[in-house]
Every structure is written in structure tokens, then in C-alpha cells.
């Protein structure tokens, strides 16, 4: 999907600082995510990507700054307003986080039962649709413990889609998946984003995924504790001159080249 500058901003992050106690993880982050785009939050392991995501989905109160969804400030809103904003979110956790004592179908049905007044038959139709969108309809009656890692991710994606979210958050979607399954998940994310028109925010350091699907993004640095580059992963790879970003995008080879040592002896 090509980025379209005329699209409005679905999500704005303004001067966000996140941390635990007196320890600052990331500070002064400001960026906006356009409606319909697939936005990457990149960075090395441990730079605070997931912590930023936690603040964005409402699990961790930021130390400072605001997160504005559709013109509403999430963290300064009251509890009821926060729940209403939260209903626009779908979150796919790193390990799926399926509720282990419920079947896959029950996992997808629970948010529908809690937040809508739909009949049992209607909910089961919607559950069937969401599961077949991710190719998991055959496993509807399985328990999460009976599924493989990739299937668990897809089932969790169906659950994240349950309430037709406007924004989908992915925490390391390809972590623990083989390249083929990971590619399939990428295609699925792309298809769903195109089909449903949802905005996607991905936290990841899987380069092939980032290059394949993301059209915008931000690069967080662990040392500077803030964003050091902005743009789509492909753009950053081709045009960004910052040494950390280059090293990340070229899997560390850039460092070697700078020092005059080429790993391949060329």
C-alpha cells in the first residue's frame, strides 16, 4: 500500500516519556500514525519498543506526554472514555496471550459477549468469520495448549479483530515463527489492513517483515533514549545515514565496513 499524505492522523503521540519509577526508558517521542498505514516501531532489543507500545495501548501510564486517538487524549480521559477509546484497539501480544482455559472460539467470542448485545447466533457467525479470515476455523474447538506457535498467533489475531478495531497493535508478530509462517502472517496483516482499512502499529526487529509490510515508522535508540530516525523501513535502509540505524538495517555489517574489516573479505 502506498502512503497517502492526504490521509488524516489516526493516532498522535506527543512528547511521550515512558519509564519505571525514576528510570526513563524513552523520552520526548512525538510522532503520528496515518489512518490505514502500517507503522513500525523499530530498534534494538531492550531499547523500550514494547514499553512504548504498552503506553500506547493503555497498559502503562506515561511519565509525561499524551497519546491522542481520533482527537481524544487517551491518558487524560476518564475511565469510561478510556474504555471507549480502548474498544478501537486490537492488540496481538507477543506470545498470543490466549486465555488458556477457553477454546479458540470462546477466546474470540468473549469480547463480543462483553461489549455487544448481539445474539448467540450472531456472535458465533462473527467468530466463524474472524477465524476463517486467519485460516483457523478448523481449530475453533481446540484449546490454546493444543495449538502450534503459529496457530496460536493467528488465533490471537482473530481475537484482536473481534470488535472490528480501527487500530491493530502487534508486539513482535513474527517472534518465534519460522520464515514461512512469518511471511504468511505478514501477508495476512497486509491483506487485513487493505481489506478492513485498519491502521497497524507493529513493534518488531524482524527486518524482512519490516521491509515487506511497513510504510512508515520510527527508530528508537537505547543510548539516546529517544527516536533517532523517522520514515518507512525501506527508506531508512536506503537513505538514512545515522550509524546505529544503518547497522540495524544492514544487520551489523555497516559497523564492520566502517572499521575497514569486511566480514566476507571483499
Amino acid at each position, binding site marked *: 500500500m502506498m502512503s497517502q499524505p492526504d490521509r488524516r492522523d489516526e493516532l498522535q503521540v506527543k512528547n511521550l516519556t515512558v519509564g519505571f519509577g525514576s528510570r526513563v526508558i524513552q523520552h520526548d517521542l512525538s510522532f503520528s500514525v496515518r489512518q490505514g498505514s502500517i507503522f513500525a516501531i523499530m530498534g534494538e532489543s531492550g531499547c523500550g519498543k514494547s514499553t512504548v507500545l504498552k503506553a500506547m495501548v493503555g497498559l502503562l501510564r506515561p511519565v509525561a506526554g499524551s497519546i491522542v486517538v481520533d482527537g481524544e487524549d487517551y491518558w487524560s480521559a476518564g475511565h469510561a472514555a478510556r474504555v*471507549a477509546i480502548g474498544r478501537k484497539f486490537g492488540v496481538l501480544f507477543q506470545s498470543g496471550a490466549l486465555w*488458556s482455559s477457553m477454546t479458540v472460539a470462546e477466546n474470540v467470542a468473549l469480547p463480543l459477549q462483553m461489549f455487544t448485545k448481539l445474539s448467540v447466533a*450472531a456472535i458465533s457467525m*462473527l467468530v466463524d468469520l474472524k477465524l476463517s479470515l486467519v485460516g483457523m*476455523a478448523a481449530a475453533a*474447538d481446540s484449546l490454546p495448549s493444543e495449538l502450534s506457535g503459529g496457530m496460536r498467533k493467528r488465533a490471537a489475531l482473530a481475537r484482536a479483530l473481534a470488535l472490528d478495531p480501527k487500530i491493530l497493535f502487534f508486539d513482535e508478530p513474527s517472534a518465534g515463527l519460522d520464515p514461512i509462517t512469518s511471511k504468511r502472517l505478514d501477508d495476512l496483516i497486509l491483506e487485513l489492513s487493505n481489506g478492513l482499512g485498519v491502521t497497524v502499529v507493529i513493534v518488531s526487529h524482524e527486518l524482512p517483515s519490516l521491509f515487506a509490510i511497513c510504510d512508515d515508522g520510527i527508530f528508537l535508540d537505547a543510548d539516546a533514549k529517544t527516536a533517532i530516525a523517522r520514515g518507512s523501513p525501506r527508506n531508512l535502509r536506503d537513505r538514512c545515514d545515522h550509524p546505529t540505524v544503518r547497522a540495524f538495517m544492514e544487520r551489523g555489517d555497516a559497523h564492520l565496513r566502517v572499521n575497514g574489516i569486511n566480514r566476507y573479505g571483499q
Partner: protein
Amino acid sequence: MAVADLRSPLWRLDRGGNTATLVLSGDWVACDTGLRGGDEIRHILGNARGKSLRFDTSEIGRWDSALVVFLKMLRDGALITQPHPVEVDDTGLPETTRRLLALAISERGKRQHPDKLATSFASLVGGKALEVWKAAGGAATLVGAAALRGGAAIAFRAQMRASDVFQLVLEAGASALGIVAIVNGLVGAILAFVGAVQLERFGAGIYVANLVGIAVVREMAPIVTAIVMAGRTGGAYAAHLATMQGNEEIDALEVFGISVFDLLVLPRILALVLMMPLLYLYGCAIGLFGGLVAAVATTGMSVATFLHQLQGAVSDSQFEIGLAKSIVFGALVALSGCYIGLKTGRSAADVGHAATSAVVAGIVGIIALDAVFAVCANVLGI
């Protein structure tokens, strides 16, 4: 969310020649305007029988899953309309809807249902019996392993970590002092109070010391202490090991070749077997003190009389029986907690079940073993 300005989802079927056109209008938003389907699908397909079904979505407003569900049911329904199949022509649909429909490939008939279990009475009874037999075998194996590895542990040949043992001894010992004191003290006081009321009618108020002494030392202190520990520590062991099972931590130990029994079960048995006799003696002291206070308060006898009477009533063998019981109960609580924790499933609910059944098994086991002790002591004339 402005629900007010949403229109309800509508459809209209225009028929002409070989084609039927389904005109969709209104807003199709699942959470707000609901779903359409069921009989309407059959109605549409019935009226479009033998024709090509087209779509006109020019009047449609907002849409989400509700529309896709509707279209998917139409498509899936059309496939099984016999003998005059409906040919669905999706070119009139928005591009994005077509993509989603393509993604939601029908998996009709592929849905796996878990194998139906036999439900006749005989098979239920048989299944239960096999389960009990298997559980008994597992428990026996564990007791055997405990005996074998316990010997190794005493000879310092087991793969235990001293820090684990220390931590577990602390949790099963010092941390339990408070609750063991409260429960035993109250039980002793209640015994003295009830006993005094009855015995004073016969002018035998002084024998309340004998009653409290024998009951507390021989029965109440070991049983009450063990039940408290079953609820407190047995449940904790089961929940801990069940959670480790769910996180694949047990699998990780097995892969390394580290003995799960030595590392996890043995320290727990050791901790309870070491601490339970001490807690028993402590519980005895508090129980007798509780009895003393209640007896002095209700019958007005002097403290010295009570103690003198007590000394004559409680022989060493009573303490020996109590100590033997407390050691056996300690091993039982630790073994049942660990056994249930290790053989549990991997979900969050299984952890809850494991804790519950460990406590239940512990309490039932304690009472049953106490009955065995009573019979043995009777035969041996102790």
C-alpha cells in the same frame, strides 16, 4: 461512537432475466446495527435459484464484519443450493470486500470435533476405575521414589540446592508459627471448656487435665497442625509446580537431564518432614497452654494442680505416637501436593484445580491415616 446517525442495514432483490441483483443499503456495522442472516439468506437464495446473483453496493454506507459475514453466508449457501445452483458474481462488490471474502475461504466440514467419548454406564465406571488404578500406580511410584531418593538425600547424594531447602524450610516452618499457634491454642481451650462442663457434673473436674493432655498430644495437635499445613503449604506446592508445568519449566529441567524429583519434590518433602514434628511439639505446647487457661478459668483449679495432673496423664508414648504421626502427615502433605502439581494440565484453570485437589487430598489423607494409626495403636496396645 455516534450510533444515532447509523441507518439499519437493508437489502432488496431485483430480479430480471437470468440475473438477480441484490441491492445493499444502509450501514452494516456489526457491533451497532447487528447482523443479518439465517432465514434471509435462504430467502435470497431461494428467489435467485438458477440465476446469476449480482451485487449493487452503490447505496451502502459504513460497513465492517457484518457485511462480510452476510456475503460469506450467501456465498457458502450458494455452493450447496441444489438442484439449481446460484452463481455468485462478486464483481459488483467493493475491492476490499472481495479481498476479505477471498481470505475467508470456507472451511465448511473441515471443522474438527473432539472425539466423542463413550458415555455408557459401564464405560464410565470402567474409565473411572482405570483412572484410579493409574493414579494409585503413580502415587505408589512417587512414594517409592521418595523412599529411594530420600535415602540418597540423607547421604548428601541428591541433586538438591541447599538454598531451595533453606527457603522451603523457612516457608514451612517459621512462617507457619502464627497460624499453628492460633488454631492449636483455640482447640486446646475448647477441649478444656467442653470437658470441664461435662466432668464437673460428676465432680470429676480435675480430670479435665487428663482429657486435654491426651486429646491434644495424641490426636488434636498432629491432626490440626497437619490440616493447617495441607491448606497452607500443600496447596502452594501444587500451584507452584503446576505453574512451572504450564511454563514448560519442568520440560526444561527434563531436557537438561536434571531430576525433577531431586530438585523440586525432594526438598519439599524434606522441608515438611523436618518441620512438621517441630510444629507438632510447638502446637502441643500452645494447645496445652490453651487448655490450662480455659480449665483454670472455668473450674477454678490452680495452675499447679493442672500441671501435676497433666504430668501423670500424658506418658512419653503419647508423644511418640504424636511425633510419628506428624512425620507421616508431613510426608503425605508434601507428596500429594507435588504429585498433583506435577501431573496437572497446562492451563490457568488447571493450576486452580491442582491447588484445590492438593488441599482436599491432603486433608482426606490425614484423617484416613489417623484412622490407620488408631487401629495399629489399639492392636499394639499403646
